[in-house]
């Protein structure tokens, strides 16, 4: 069968893109390496979530073993496990993209209709004071005292049942009530009802574009499979799309392949309170820093938290000291700094498809981290924390770059029309095309870029 469009990867980009393409009446195939979970089949425990939903069986590491990357493997991709915070990019982020890539449509005005459309296809909720849990209240009140600006988060969610004391840390392993507006809920399941063909557990390793069509080759249940479309769009994320391009032999043609990798390194610190905080209960994340000074300094703060295994992983202590810290789980206040990092990382791939990721923290990254840590320490002290745990472990959730967009084939992988330089039938639409790190949650923009490409392809 010859499809009009084959989309490889079903995360934020691929999910939205396949929805909009399918809506136009085109024959669309959505391929995904991971399994197809539904709200009633997601893993029910934190241990199973880590082991089943992530590439590498939980976590992948940078070459130096310092940074962990969390990369999901299932229909819906990272949107299934993330917090679904929906922020538009600001002038700073889009201007920096424009300057780095030479792509002149990276402007708030041109992106606005795409943001508008995606937002209208999701249920969005902005939190308010009444919904804040103690972790958020401690954060906001301390920010007020210190003169730091903060704001309520906007999240994709339809019905989280807070009145029934539902705990949303559970949905970090997939929302079990289809409230969180993941790509699965907001786009893929809707498109499925309208005829989108979805094939899960099919890992594509190679693309073969020609003049009029493009083939993709992969494995399904250990057997080789090939699909052909008039156009193929890779949406496997920074690691996935970059790997497919590497394995298809593009490194010699496009030297920028794998380069300019960034990941918004995240550092979580804990403050131990005298009173119970229960940061894992209810709508656990409702506010974040909105301070222009922080933005200018290249970091942001969020009042995040996690389940016990993940919190335990933040601590490098062993034995009795580790248990002393963990015993205070319900008393923990938690703040993370996410650094707007330089795109100094690189994603390499050997001929067997094994990825090696180099992601050094640059001096600028470290300065931004330290400024963020200083602000966190101020907030925790002002909140009355009796002890502060400064975790040294850091990780990347927002994996960006590797197939960056730009006007020059010598320094980028895709052109301003999302086409791989030199190809007519092969496109990329996901976070791998980001020219640099925006310092803002990328989910909404990835979806909006998917919408932009869909509009262009439908024409």
């Amino acid at each position: 069968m010859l499809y009009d469009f084959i989309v490889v990867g079903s995360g934020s980009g691929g999910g939205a893109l396949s929805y909009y393409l399918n809506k136009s009446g085109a024959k669309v195939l959505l391929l995904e390496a991971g399994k197809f979970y539904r709200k009633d089949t997601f893993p029910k425990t934190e241990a199973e979530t880590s082991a089943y939903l992530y590439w590498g069986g939980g976590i992948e590491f940078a070459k130096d073993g310092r940074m962990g990357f969390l990369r999901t493997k299932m229909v819906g991709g990272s949107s299934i496990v993330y917090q679904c915070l929906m922020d538009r990019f600001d002038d700073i982020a889009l201007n920096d993209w424009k300057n780095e890539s030479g792509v002149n449509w990276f402007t708030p005005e041109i992106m606005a209709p795409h943001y508008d459309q995606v937002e209208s296809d999701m249920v969005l909720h902005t939190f308010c004071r009444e919904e804040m849990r103690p972790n958020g209240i401690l954060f906001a009140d301390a920010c007020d005292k210190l003169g730091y600006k903060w704001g309520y988060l906007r999240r994709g969610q339809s019905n989280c049942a807070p009145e029934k004391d539902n705990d949303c840390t559970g949905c970090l392993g997939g929302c079990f009530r289809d409230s969180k507006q993941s790509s699965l809920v907001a786009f893929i399941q809707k498109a499925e009802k309208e005829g989108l063909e979805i094939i899960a557990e099919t890992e594509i390793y190679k693309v073969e574009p020609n003049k009029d069509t493009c083939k993709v080759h992969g494995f399904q249940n250990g057997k080789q499979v090939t699909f052909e479309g008039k156009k193929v769009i890779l949406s496997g994320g920074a690691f996935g799309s970059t790997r497919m391009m590497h394995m298809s032999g593009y490194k010699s043609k496009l030297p920028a392949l794998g380069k300019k990798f960034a990941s918004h390194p995240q550092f979580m610190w804990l403050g131990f309170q005298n009173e119970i905080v229960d940061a894992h209960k209810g709508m656990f994340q409702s506010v974040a820093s909105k301070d222009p000074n922080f933005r200018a300094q290249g970091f942001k703060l969020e009042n995040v938290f996690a389940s016990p295994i993940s919190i335990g992983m933040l601590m490098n202590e062993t034995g009795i000291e580790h248990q002393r810290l963990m015993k205070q789980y319900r008393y923990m206040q938690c703040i993370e700094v996410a650094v707007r990092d330089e795109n100094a990382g690189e994603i390499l791939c050997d001929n067997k498809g094994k990825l090696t990721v180099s992601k050094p923290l640059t001096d600028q990254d470290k300065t931004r981290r330290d400024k963020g840590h200083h602000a966190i320490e101020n907030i925790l002290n002002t909140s009355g924390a009796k002890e502060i745990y400064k975790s040294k472990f850091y990780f990347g959730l927002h994996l960006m770059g590797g197939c960056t967009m730009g006007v020059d084939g010598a320094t980028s992988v895709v052109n301003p029309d999302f086409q791989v330089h030199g190809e007519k039938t092969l496109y990329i639409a996901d976070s791998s095309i980001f020219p640099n790190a925006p310092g803002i949650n990328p989910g909404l923009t990835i979806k909006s870029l998917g919408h932009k490409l869909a509009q262009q392809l439908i024409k």
Partner: protein
Amino acid sequence: MANFFSTRATKGLLNVGEIYCPKNGEFPSFKEAAGTAYLNNFVKNVPEDDFNSLSLVLAIFSFLPNFLLVWIINLCTNAQNSPSDGLLYSNLRQLNLGLRGLCYSIYYSEFTNPNYKGKKALDVLDYKLNRVTE
């Protein structure tokens, strides 16, 4: 082929887990509480090369006296703070996180040893999660 820990590797993990999570007040010892029967479920998606390396290391750990194991775990833990990006320290850091991930996944979880009837680590934390599905 599916990843599967040998009896020897499982013994090594129990020894390591006891260093990370010993019997301490209300906290159960890793050896008595850990549901090792579930262990293989948690590694089925680990790349085969990585699993084989981990399995080999754990099997070696099963032969080591406790003082030596404590020394190695301390080496791994301290590697997190080392400025070196050399192969040794990179691998020690990955081993540190890999071992902790595996141990905590079964210690701070519902997957305890079915013969263990005492308080689970999650109960000691007084951790409860309410999932409202309807």
